[in-house]
């Protein structure tokens, strides 16, 4: 049964993609896309009931390619469920959002291809298969970012995303190769079980290779620069890929291999610091931008930073729980933002404002999502964020202080965003109208999720605990009621709430705090400039390009110089042979 469901989760979207490509009319394409994504979502949700710790599908390739296996354990099935459910909602949302666009076939096919690949990534039990799906998701993400091909910004954003995630991919590849060279097998469970017996240097290469891969995929410092550029994608794609699913793959990778790498010296500290910096920088950058989607993208960097930080602090369950909650509320925020952008035709928050009256439904769901993001109690983001901060407090107090500050910043930029878009004075004369039906369905389901999904934390924790044999001792899980009780009675929670309230207050009182604002201007300016990372990126690109241009002169096109090349080669080779004889 599990094997069948696994195949269905992956192959239903792929079959749908093929169908979409071959379909003749746009209506048929939409139908095919919705049908196959719904099937995949159902299969993935059913899979939660049939989890296994052993491979359910096996496929031997032999030689250095090993055996391809799929292991539907709790972690994998849970992430597959997130990917397919949000994928399905995104497809439904797209029915309205993408209506009338050109090349709908390519759009839906790529989205479906992505959903299948994402499920494959999290369910894979073989390192090589994991890498293959890892790259496929990157490819789909690239193709969807540059979906509006005629826009050079979209193309540039896509290529940037592709190249940076591929550099991460090299890290993953190297890590896998180092492990494979020692173990002689590509089985993930063998790696986790035998990590202790690996030579220290090989394990270190693997651990840090995976960390680089995770940082690049999850847009963590210093590889985060691709995510803002990825906002050129159609908004449903940003919701699906760049908020709810693909960017989680890095967090997934770290969580999955945590038992193997936790003992590597410096690894957990590195993870902790990367998460911390990303959370802080992301929040500051979100505060400094005027572009609605970029603000959400920076906030994604920041929230992913929280998850990575949690893993560094040993809170595996906290990170995965936050992953779930973040996927839901960030998808909601992105789709809500999509509805706004769809009607306004701009992404600049300074040109919005006063939309509250024209779009009450969208306002309501956006505010729900925003409160969850800010960490206000009884929305799902609150619980997981508190768990993360608890874990941080237990590990390193100095980091807890910084994360507390970041939580306050989160509240500040969330309120700023909501205010600029929905309240304040209206700047635009556009006749805004509320979201159409298909959008409402998607947004409504997600909003319900934000309100209620945290109630499942106990069941979720139980699922992870029972199906992840190697994570024994690193997963601290309590029932939902225990969690609520523990959090409400913890002093840290109240401290956090106070900081969050302070964040809100800062925005409300911003007019009276000019001294503070002025003092912060340089920081804000640095944040707007992406703390120099963007400059570094450009520098690397221009260096490569000018090297290429310079090198092109060597192709003189003159026959004599070509022969000189041959003779030079001869001399060089003879010298090498003479020296190395």
């Amino acid at each position, binding site marked *: 049964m599990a094997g069948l469901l696994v195949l269905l989760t992956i192959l239903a979207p792929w079959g749908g993609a093929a169908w979409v490509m071959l379909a003749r009319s746009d209506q048929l394409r939409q139908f095919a896309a919705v049908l196959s994504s719904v099937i995949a979502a159902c299969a993935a949700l059913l899979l939660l009931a049939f989890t296994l710790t052993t491979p359910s599908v096996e496929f031997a*390739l*032999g*030689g*250095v*390619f090993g055996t391809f296996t799929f292991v539907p354990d709790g972690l994998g099935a849970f992430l597959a469920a997130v990917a397919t459910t949000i994928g399905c909602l995104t497809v439904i949302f797209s029915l309205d959002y993408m209506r009338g666009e*050109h*090349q709908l076939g*390519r759009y839906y096919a790529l989205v479906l291809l992505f959903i299948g690949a994402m499920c494959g990534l999290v369910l894979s039990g073989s390192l*090589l298969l994991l*890498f*293959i799906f890892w*790259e*496929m998701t990157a*490819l789909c993400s*690239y193709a969807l970012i*540059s979906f*509006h*091909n*005629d826009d050079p910004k979209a*193309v540039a954003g*896509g*290529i940037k995303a*592709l*190249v940076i995630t*591929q*550099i991460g*991919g*090299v890290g993953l*590849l*190297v890590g896998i*190769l*180092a492990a*494979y*060279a020692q173990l002689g097998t590509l089985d993930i469970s063998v790696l986790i079980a035998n990590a202790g017996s690996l030579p220290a240097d090989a394990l270190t290469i693997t651990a840090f290779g995976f960390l680089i891969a995770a940082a690049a995929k999850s847009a963590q410092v210093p590889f985060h620069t691709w995510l803002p550029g990825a906002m050129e994608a159609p908004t449903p794609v940003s919701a699906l890929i760049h908020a709810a699913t693909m960017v989680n793959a890095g967090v997934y990778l770290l969580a999955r291999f945590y038992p193997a790498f936790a003992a590597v010296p410096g690894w957990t500290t590195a993870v902790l610091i990367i998460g911390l910096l990303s959370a802080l920088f992301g929040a500051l950058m979100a505060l400094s931008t005027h572009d609605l989607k970029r603000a959400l993208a920076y906030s994604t960097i920041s929230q992913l930073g929280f998850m990575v930080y949690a893993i560094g602090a040993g809170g595996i369950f906290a990170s995965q729980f936050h992953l779930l909650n973040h996927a839901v509320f960030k998808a909601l925020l992105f789709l809500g933002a999509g509805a706004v952008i769809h009607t306004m035709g701009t992404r600049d928050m300074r040109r919005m404002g006063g939309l509250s009256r024209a779009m009450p439904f969208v306002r309501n769901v956006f505010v729900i999502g925003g409160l969850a993001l800010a960490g206000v109690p009884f929305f799902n983001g609150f619980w997981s964020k508190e768990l993360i901060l608890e874990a941080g407090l237990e590990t390193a107090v100095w980091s807890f202080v910084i994360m507390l500050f970041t939580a306050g910043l989160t509240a500040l930029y969330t309120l700023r965003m909501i205010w600029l878009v929905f309240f304040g004075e209206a700047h635009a004369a556009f006749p805004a109208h509320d979201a159409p039906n298909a959008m409402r369905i998607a947004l409504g389901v997600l909003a319900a999720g934000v309100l209620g999904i945290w109630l499942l934390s106990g069941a979720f924790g139980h699922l992870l605990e029972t199906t992840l044999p190697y994570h024994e001792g690193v997963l601290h899980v309590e029932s939902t009621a225990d969690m609520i009780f523990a959090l409400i009675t913890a002093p840290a929670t109240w401290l956090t709430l106070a900081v969050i309230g302070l964040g809100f207050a800062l925005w409300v009182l911003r007019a009276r705090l000019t001294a503070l604002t002025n003092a912060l201007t340089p920081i804000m300016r640095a944040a707007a400039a992406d703390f120099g990372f963007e400059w570094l990126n450009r520098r690397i690109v221009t260096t*490569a*390009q000018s*090297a*290429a*241009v310079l*090198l*092109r002169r*060597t*192709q*003189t*096109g003159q*026959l004599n*110089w*070509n*022969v000189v*090349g*041959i003779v*030079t*080669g*001869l001399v060089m*080779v*003879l010298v*090498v*042979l003479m020296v*190395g*004889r």
Partner: protein
Amino acid sequence: MTPSLALIGLPLVSSPLVYFAGRADRRHAAWSRIAALLSLLIAWVLFVQSATQFSMSGALDSTIGMITLRIDGISLLLTAVVLTLATFVTLYSDRYMMGEMGEEKYYALVIAMSGAMIGLACAADLFNLWVWFELMTVSSFLLVAFYCQRRLALEAGVKYLVQSAVGSVLVLLGVALIFAVTGTLRLDELALAGESLALIGAGGLFVIGFGVKIALVPMHTWLPDAHSQAPSGISTLLSGVVIEAGLIALLRVIGALAGIAESWGVLLLAFAAINMLFGNLMALRQKQVKRLLAFSSLSHIGYMLLGFGIAFYAGTPDGAAGGFFHLLTHGLMKGLAFLAAGALLYGLHLAHERHDPLTVNDLAGAGKRYPLAALSLSIAVLGLGGLPPLAGFMSKWQIFTAGFETQDLVLMLLVIFAALNSVLSLAYYAPLVNRMYRDHPSSAVQQGKPIPLSMQLTLIGLAVLVVAIGVLPSLVSWLTEPAGSTLMLALGR
């Protein structure tokens, strides 16, 4: 007449027949194409027979006088690639070459060149190897300068001829040196020769002499010109098998000299690193599609050299098998890329009787009007860029595992370097793909003519192969593994 000997002899016999078939009836030069296809078909039958014999009883020797022709793993691999590409190119050239002057010479020379490559892969005699090599080169001169009424093709032809000839003379010097010192020309006896400085020098001459054909940097300068100016079918063969045939010739020779010096592995690895980086950087700002693909061949030669270098340097069998696997997949992928680019070139320019180069800008919006050609080109270049699950990734993976299996720090760093180079290569492959799926077509695409069915069918065939090998890499391990072990045997490891 054993099937193996017939396999080697057949193309040589049939090449004149192909020519005369097209010559007999001057209005129907296409007869030569049918004759060429027929001889390739027979060659396939003979190939299957030889392969079965090989799998049962190992290497097949046929001795003529003092010259031995040996069908072993390496020759089977190269023969398979040569026959595959030659068949596809012959099918493909139906409309592409139709009405061109000297169509019958084209097919006759394609068959002769393929025969020369099959022979080259089988030669077990040093001088005979050179003769096959030279036959391959002489048959390709006209093919490169086939549009000999055009100045650019002539220019490419002159450069190709002169540089090939210099390389070939250097090889000959090496042969003479070895002959003088050891008194034998048999490659297997050569392996037993004692250490001698002269033999090392001869090896250096081989590296450079064959290196011109393999397009090792800095001997590569003929390659982008020849590849971009030849008819697309010929670019396919040049890039897919001719440069690889040079590589196999080099491997045979320095494989026989492997016991004499340790430096071969280092040399191969050094050239691997230079070729990968140089090819990618040269392609980065390239605007003409066929030149871009030509420069990417440089970097792919680098990957093969990396695999073989690992085998020479550390004696890792996976390195040899991976190198041969990449040789095969690169042949298919680059063949597909050139044929797809050629199909687009045909639709956009040649069908209008224009000989403009196909630029990256011309491709804008090609995806809508030429869905199949655009998809094939995308699959090909993404495969070349090493994206899974396409064939190129799997062969690179095998090479990379070999590098890490050695546990040698330098080799591991080289593998990381190679992987980063793959990322760099995406920086020019990805925009290419992007452009084809634009919404607003370029003016060339708007005025484009349809691509004939024969071309489309060949594109489908090769694309299916590229994807199938990517999904099921073990599909061709019956070719790559024996080739790898043959090389390891020659290295005495």
